[in-house]
Each structure stands twice: as C-alpha cells, then as structure tokens.
C-alpha cells in the first residue's frame, strides 16, 4: 500500500482535476470517482481482483499513479466455457498539484475498491471571509 511519503496531490485547477492515463503496456484503466470535501479530496478507484499487496500508489513529478495487478482467476486445466473477464494490470495516472499535504495521505482497500484520501494543506482549505 501507499507509503506515507509517496503519495500526493490533486490539481485544483479550474473546477475539475485533469486526468490522464498512459497506455504503455496493456493496461486497463479503472473507473474512478473523485469528490472534494472541506479538508480533503477523496479518490475511489475500482480495482476488482487486485490483491492488496500488489497495489502501488506513487506520487512523482506532480502526478499520482495507481497500479495494481490481478492474479489469474482460473487454475490450469479446464476450458473456459464463457469468457468476459481479463486479468489485467490496472494503471491510471492523475495530475496533481501542490495544494495537498503529501505526508498525510490515507489509503484503504476494501471490496475491490481503493479509497485514497488526500488531505489539503492548511493554506488551500476553503476559508470563510468575514465581511466587515
């Protein structure tokens, strides 16, 4: 799982964080939800079949990348009567900026869904401005 010092930030941009995905090898782009709270961004990524220990979350050069491997679903020996699944390597890159505290990122994996909580830095949190 994510080491604390490895993970980072979401681009606050105009409204939407920009998302881009590199396809170097045969990767599958997992679906993701992102929502913003007062003090953090939450990213949820579907990684069905991924084993927790195979998930790598890395922050580097302003990007947050998530990579995970799925072990084969079937043992050797039997014919596949029906085949819709792949046993992919999941890979997805999100653009990040400096607004997030890289040292406090929380990563949890449950039910095949990875949840990353990226806390904002104090100065990027929304503040109410009092009208004098």
């Amino acid at each position: 799982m994510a080491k604390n010092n490895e993970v980072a930030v979401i681009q606050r941009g105009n409204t939407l964080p920009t998302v881009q995905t590199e396809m170097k090898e045969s990767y599958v782009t997992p679906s993701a939800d992102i929502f913003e709270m007062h003090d953090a961004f939450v990213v949820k990524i579907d990684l069905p079949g991924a084993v927790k220990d195979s998930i790598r979350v890395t922050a580097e050069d302003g990007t947050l990348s998530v990579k995970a491997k799925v072990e084969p679903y079937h043992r050797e020996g039997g014919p596949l009567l029906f085949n819709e699944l792949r046993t992919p390597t999941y890979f997805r890159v999100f653009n990040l900026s400096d607004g997030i505290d890289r040292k406090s990122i929380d990563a949890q994996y449950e039910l095949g869904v990875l949840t990353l909580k990226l806390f904002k830095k104090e100065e990027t949190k929304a503040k109410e401005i009092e009208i004098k």
Partner: protein
Amino acid sequence: MLVRVQRFPSSLFEPLLNFDHDLENMFKGGWCAPAARSARQYPALDIAEYGNESVVVAEMPGVKKEDLKLSVQDGMLTISGERKAHQTPENSSWLRNEIRIGEFERTIQLPHDVKTDAITAELTNGVLRIVLPKSEEVRPREIAIK
C-alpha cells in the same frame, strides 16, 4: 423485468439476443452497467469447467456480501444485487463520477447438472467466485475394462 438467458458458448447471434435488452435500457434510461455499454451484461463473468466442478467468476467491486443474492433454479443461476452509493459527507462536491451504482441481475444457464446443495460462493476483493460441483451422473469416470 425482462430476464434474458445467456447461453454459451456465445454465438454469432449474441448481438441479436441482446437487442431487446439494449432497447429496453435505451428507453428506461436507468442504470447501465459499464459492461452493458458494450452490449454486455453486468456483472461480467467467466465460467471455467474442470473435471468435477465448474467455477463462475464475476467482477463486482464495491458490492457487499449482504447486498448480493444467488439462486439456482431449473438449471439457471441468477446473480442479483445492488452496489450502493458511497457515503459522501455533507458539503462535498463531485469532481468526477465514473463508477456506476445501482441494482443488477444476471441469469446464466448452468453448464451441467449441479449438486445444488454443495454450491459454494465467496466474495473476495470485489470478485465473486461460485463453485458448482457436478452431480454424480455427469462427473467424468473411468470405466474398468473387464
């Protein structure tokens, strides 16, 4: 609700067989699973056959055990359930929403006679694995030559 039976091996007629289902979805405007966008049903699944059993594997991330139901009747296996929405705190705003939620149901024809009382299923890391042991009559057996 229209229940469509998926027979295998999947045939050239699959697009035609899917047509009524797609049409229904088109007008219903309801939930359309990611897999269904490519004229497939949700959940996507594999079926592998071994000597004494078959194994059905289906991907369903975010579905809890208690929200999932399996039933076998008349040689048909039905997988139904619901993926519930994330708990989003108040005052949070969505920036990106790709993950589909909602109810799903899929019925498949079992590949062989199954010992229904010996079926086992487990849900791990968003993947459902159902083991269907063959009934005695259809198990492969060696015949001794006298």
